[in-house]
């Protein structure tokens, strides 16, 4: 564990939040912002981050951007269209149910990113998680299959591939 580096990373995060919230960049804002973010960084260095070195990897950032692009412009659009279709269809072809979906990412952040991606796309919601078995329980608007691996392929595999590159 690399504490000074974590400190620095968390401080940068806090400083960005401070300046964005304040909405102005006068010398006063910068000085107080630095002081506050250094203190906050010290308090949360060991809580927020486990391996700060990852933050400095450009490859991870590139994948993060790719993940974001994929998520916003592909996954979201696709699932929105799908749900819209189901709502507007006169017969409402839905088949709600909860399926088990295994996952294969390691770190907490990766798991959270995947879980939140699933929840945020319409049609699927993560209702529970079993970290020791590496399982999500996902509520699905149209259960196409109850086979865990097949479900994983339809729901979360793409997210996992990116999340693995970004966070693991």
């Amino acid at each position: 564990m690399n504490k000074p580096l974590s400190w620095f990373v968390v401080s940068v995060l806090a400083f960005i939040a401070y300046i964005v919230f304040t909405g102005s960049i006068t010398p006063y804002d910068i000085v107080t912002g630095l002081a506050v973010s250094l203190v906050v960084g010290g308090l949360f260095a060991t809580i927020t981050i486990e391996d700060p070195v990852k933050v400095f990897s450009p490859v991870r950032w590139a994948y993060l951007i790719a993940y974001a692009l994929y998520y916003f412009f592909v996954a979201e659009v696709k699932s929105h269209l799908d749900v819209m279709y189901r709502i507007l269809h006169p017969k409402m072809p839905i088949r709600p149910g909860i399926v088990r979906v295994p996952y294969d990412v390691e770190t907490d952040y990766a798991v959270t990113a995947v879980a939140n991606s699933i929840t945020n796309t319409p049609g699927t919601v993560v209702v529970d998680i079993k970290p020791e078995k590496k399982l999500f329980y996902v509520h699905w608007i149209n259960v196409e299959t109850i086979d865990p691996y097949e479900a994983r392929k339809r729901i979360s595999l793409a997210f996992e591939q990116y999340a693995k590159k970004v966070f693991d």
Partner: protein
Amino acid sequence: MRRWIGICVLILTILGLSFVVAANINTLVPTTNVRTLAEIYLKYTYYPWDKYFTAMSPEACTSIVWDFRGLDTVFETMVFYLAIIGAIALARGVPLKLPKEIKRDLGLSLIVKTVTKIVPVLIIAVAGSIALHGHLTPGGGFQGGATAAVAPVLILVVFSQFYLLKRGVNKNSMLLLRSIGLTGIGITAFAAVLIGLATGHYAFVLQNQPKPLAPDVSLPAFVGGQLISGSLWFFNFFEFLAVAAGFTIVFLLITLPEKLAEAKEEKHVVEVEEG
């Protein structure tokens, strides 16, 4: 019978208050003008052309709260302090200590925990901004402190109390922080008098900018060209510490696992004697 008395009281209250408002419709209902006193406050809250009659803060509420009517706020802080002391007194004998065994997997799910690792960082940064810009924009020490206290509350709910206790956020350390903040408020209240005693000039309690009767003592309105409005900045800062610590104590006390608290209390009851 009781209920009828209650309803009569209710109706009488409503009718009486309505009558008073109706009778004083000119003074109790807003008009396009404000009262003279309010105009004075609005005009002199930031008035660099008369250094003897201004609070040097563009935020009129903060300058009333901490400068024009600073005494109210010092004692408002004291009310809050005494309420927390009263709460601690009611929870005394209940140790806020780490038990030897902690059940594993306390708290909420992994996802919530991971998010809670980041969110408090942002909360405290925002809280700091609210507190330290109290003399420029709406907000101030109390509001900032209350916001900052959300962070420990989140951690408390998501990770369990023991997570905080393990990291040294316990009643004693928070009380110490609170006491430091309050001492800071006390020192700021007497700052002008202390400076006056040191330099041999007359000064007022809770003085901020120079006054006609105490023209030689003042707290700096600008530091390095940046407006800090003299004592207001210090008050806001110390109030921030005190309030954040105070709320943390309250939430630590009120979320104590009940079984743990009662087990300790039963032992205690025996020792209590007649008051």
